[in-house]
Structure formats: structure tokens, C-alpha cells
């Protein structure tokens, strides 16, 4: 029995190492003094430790702009998605529309469409509208990747709440939006948090859209910046410091809510 538990512990330990290996390497590279870190020295340990890349970043206006763009795009995407998904899910759950269920399912199905099918016409459309090369292109596109699934998640969650809640509120003469605000939303925090996290994950994990929609350096999120400039092979320290300082803390913070995320997303499938 003890050997068995040891086995599980070793397995877990190995998987944790696998998960953080590239993050650890980025951290090490960001802490090495000088240049040429990619071809010289020990890649696993910062022999000549320094924080110069971090202090350099903090005084660089470019870093401030990239982080600001990332925050604006992520925050706006999350807010637009949450509002639109909540209203839509509420409409489907509260009003007994003839095809509520069909609409919710079609939204879910539209979320699953392969990314390769949609990115090209979206790029063509936004180019015609002269929206590419600004953060606006991303801010209008990303919610469309979140809202369909977000609506389905919230709709499932609302449907799981006891129906007496709604009946009672209706009987007391509450107006629809009051029911949403005072009855449903306070009970729906796990699902709302999950949809918010999902929005962050969509923005953080996208590359196809940033790559095709944004090439103006002034409009780049951190993902687009790292992706399009790739890494200065002679001087990679600042790039990895940018990642460590600009997105790693947010990502780790989100990761701490893995349970909330899973319970919210899995409402329909987790008993």
C-alpha cells in the first residue's frame, strides 16, 4: 500500500516537473546577465544572476504599452463575453421560448467549429472594414470565441437551479432583470467565474487571430509581440522577463481557480 502511494507521488512529481519545465527555463533565461544566453552557459541555471532585464522592462515604455494592450484586450473580452452570455442564457432559461434548447445547443455547436474554418474570412472581413492593426480587431473577435460556449455553460447552470426560485420571484411580481440580478446572479458566481476564466484562456491561448489580424507594433498584446518578433537571439533576456512579469502571475492566479473553472464548465456533466 505504501509502495503504491509512493508510486502515485513519483508520478505526480514527474508531471509537475513536465508542466513547469518550460516556465522554469524561461525564468532562468530571464535572470541571466548579459547577452547570448541562448548559446552560452548552462541553460538550467543562471550562473551570473541579475535582475537587469526586469528593471530594464519597468523603465521601458514599450513594455507598459504591451501589458496595457494585453490587459485591455483580455479585460474587455471577458466583460463583453460575460454580459452577452449572461443575458442570452437568462433569456433562454427564463422565457419559455419555443426553441430555447435548440438555440443553446446550436450555440454550443458553433463554438466547436474548427478555428481553421473561421479565421480567414474574419481576417478578410476586418481588413475590408479597416479594423485590422488595432486592438479593436481583437476586442470584437475574441468575444465571438467565448460567448457561444459561455452561454451554453450559464444556461445549463441556470437550469440546474431549483425552479421554485424563479416561480417564487415571478409570483412576487419581480421583473425579469430583477430576477436575474437578485436571484440568479448571486447563486451563479462559480459559473460566471468559469466563463471569465474561459475568456482569459481564449485570449491567452490564441495565436492564429493575433497573427492574422494585428501587425502594428503599437496594437500588440504580449502574445502577438512575443509571437511576431519571436526572440532576439542575441539578447533574449528582456523577452522572457516580459513573459515572466507580464503574464505568468496572471496565469498562475487563474490556475489556482482550476476547481471553480472545472465545476462551472462541467455543470452539465458533473453531478
Amino acid at each position: 500500500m505504501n509502495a503504491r502511494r509512493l508510486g502515485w507521488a513519483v508520478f505526480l512529481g514527474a508531471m509537475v516537473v513536465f508542466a513547469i519545465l518550460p516556465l522554469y527555463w524561461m525564468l532562468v533565461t530571464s535572470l541571466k546577465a548579459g547577452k547570448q544566453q541562448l548559446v552560452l552557459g548552462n541553460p538550467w541555471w543562471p550562473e551570473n544572476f541579475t535582475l537587469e532585464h526586469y528593471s530594464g522592462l519597468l523603465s521601458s515604455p514599450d513594455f507598459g504599452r504591451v501589458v496595457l494592450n494585453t490587459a485591455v484586450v483580455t479585460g474587455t473580452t471577458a466583460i463583453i463575453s460575460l454580459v452577452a452570455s449572461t443575458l442570452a442564457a437568462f433569456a433562454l432559461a427564463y422565457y419559455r421560448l419555443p426553441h430555447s434548447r435548440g438555440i443553446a445547443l446550436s450555440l454550443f455547436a458553433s463554438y466547436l467549429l474548427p478555428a481553421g474554418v473561421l479565421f480567414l474570412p474574419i481576417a478578410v472581413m476586418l481588413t475590408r472594414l479597416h479594423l485590422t492593426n488595432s486592438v479593436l480587431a481583437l476586442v470584437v473577435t475574441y468575444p465571438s470565441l467565448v460567448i457561444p460556449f459561455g452561454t451554453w455553460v450559464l444556461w445549463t447552470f441556470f437550469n440546474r437551479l431549483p425552479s421554485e426560485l424563479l416561480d417564487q420571484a415571478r409570483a412576487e411580481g419581480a421583473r425579469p432583470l430583477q430576477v436575474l440580478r437578485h436571484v440568479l446572479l448571486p447563486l451563479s458566481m462559480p459559473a460566471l467565474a468559469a466563463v471569465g476564466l474561459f475568456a482569459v484562456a481564449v485570449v491567452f491561448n490564441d495565436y492564429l487571430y493575433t497573427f492574422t489580424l494585428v501587425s502594428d507594433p503599437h496594437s500588440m498584446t504580449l502574445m502577438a509581440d512575443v509571437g511576431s518578433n519571436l526572440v532576439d537571439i542575441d539578447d533574449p533576456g528582456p523577452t522572457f522577463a516580459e513573459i515572466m512579469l507580464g503574464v505568468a502571475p496572471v496565469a498562475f492566479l487563474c490556475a489556482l481557480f482550476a476547481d471553480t473553472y472545472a465545476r462551472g464548465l462541467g455543470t452539465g456533466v458533473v453531478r
Partner: protein
Amino acid sequence: MRRLPAAPQVPMSRTPWPALLLLSPAFLFVIVFIAFPLGSEVWFSLSNAQIGEIGTFVGLSNFVYLARQGTYHDALVNTFVYTVVGIGAKAILGMALAFALARPFRGRRVVYALIFLPFIFPTVTGTMAWYYLFSNVHGAINYALMAWGLSRDGIDWLGSFGPLPMTSLITVNIWHGVGLFVVLLLASLRSISPEVLDSALVDGARSRQRFVHIILPLLKPAFALAAVLSIMGTFGDFAIIHILTNGGPANHTQTITHMAFLVALRDGDLGTSAAIAFSLMPVYLIAVAYMLRTVVSE
């Protein structure tokens, strides 16, 4: 004179307008960014559209052209291998990790967060790091192998012919995607009562039967959701392929999504690109049908 009827107890509106109003923001996004693009893509696939040109109708000739292209066949096979091996590995590792994390221990929350972290960590940046881990010029993995005397000249993880580059790509796909299986399966496991779970996890033949006949069926809906989300996500993987190998060497790791991107943006050939992208539609339809049966039916 009859009294006016009291306000109905359930003020269910007869007209659908309030509901439609609430649905309209979501519908707007779906129509503009999903339905309309989907329609455009259908047109592209049936036309000779180029970047900046709407093109003319050419019927199915883009598909006929593709069917004769060896590079397209390579991309289909590669996408199949990448997805099937990736999903299989993520499902097995995800299941094992969910069981490993199911019972409380000290530091569990941090371990769980670290396992989930790659799923939410920006894929571009993580993939960039993997590129330098795999690099054959002073790459971190080769450095370690050589330092420990396990390899003399290092291994060409990304540029050699043979299965190695694809294996490297799948490794990064697993690194990124296993967290989704873990969280959904774990959430499902934790809703099973601890006694039932424990009785199925001790040694012995009867517990194995309990595991197969009681636990696994309870996990099935969460597993199906994770699998469908993961398959469609894996199809869409772009950063991993673009950054690590760019489809090479010599098309050995080209996938459908990446090829659709290259043909559109490098060659400007929207028609062929759209036809390439649509080759994933049959799997999409199967995934949706499966989803409707497994997850949604209650």
C-alpha cells in the same frame, strides 16, 4: 361589469421581444463572426478567390485539385496522427492525474494549480520556450543529455526525418492540453461519494470490477466533454506547429489548420485554403452528434 383580471401570476410575456432583445448581443457576435464567416468560407472554397479578389464560382475544382496534392494527403495524415496520439495520451495521463489528485494531501492545491497552469499559460510563449528546450543548437534538453553522457552530439528533436519532430509537437500539445482532462475528470470524481471511490480504488478483483462498472460510467459525460473540446482544440493548434517546425522538415509535420494558414497568407489563395479547412468538417459533425447524445441528453 366584470372586474379586470388580476395581473397574471407568471408574467410570461406572450411576445418573444424581451427574450430576443436579451439574446441580441450574443446573436450579433454569432452572426457577424461565425455565421457570416462560415458562409464566406463556403463561397471561398467554391471559388477562385484570392486576397483582395472576390473570385468567380469554380464548383468543386478546389477540392479536386487538393485530392491530387501529395502535400495535402501528408497534412491529413499528420493531423490524424497528431490528434489521435495527442488525445489518447492526454486522456490516459489526465485520468491518472485526476485519480492522483482526488484524495487530499498537503500542498494539493498548489500541485493542482501547477498541473493546470500550462492550459492557461499563453501557448505562444510556452511553445517558444519548448523551441529552445528542443533546439539542437545549445538546446536545454540536449545540454542535459550531453552533460549526463546520455547522448554524444545531441538529438535533432525538430529537424530530423522520421517520427521525432511529430513526437516533439505532440509532447507540447500534451503539455498544453492535459489540464483540461484533469480538471473536468477531477470535478466529476469529486462528486462521487468518497466511500464508493475508496471501495473501487483498493486492490483486488472486486474493486477493479467496481471501478469499471461504477466509476467509469459516472465519469463518462465529463470525459466526453473533455474529449470533444480537446479534439476540436487540437485541430485548431496553430502556435505549436508554426513556432516549432513551421510544418517541416519537408512537410513532415504539416497539419490541416497550418496548411490552410500558409496557403492563404503565403500564396494568397483563399479558395484552396478554404477547401483545406473544410476537410475537418466531417469530424466536426461527428463530434457535435456525439456531444448531443452523450453530454446533452439527460
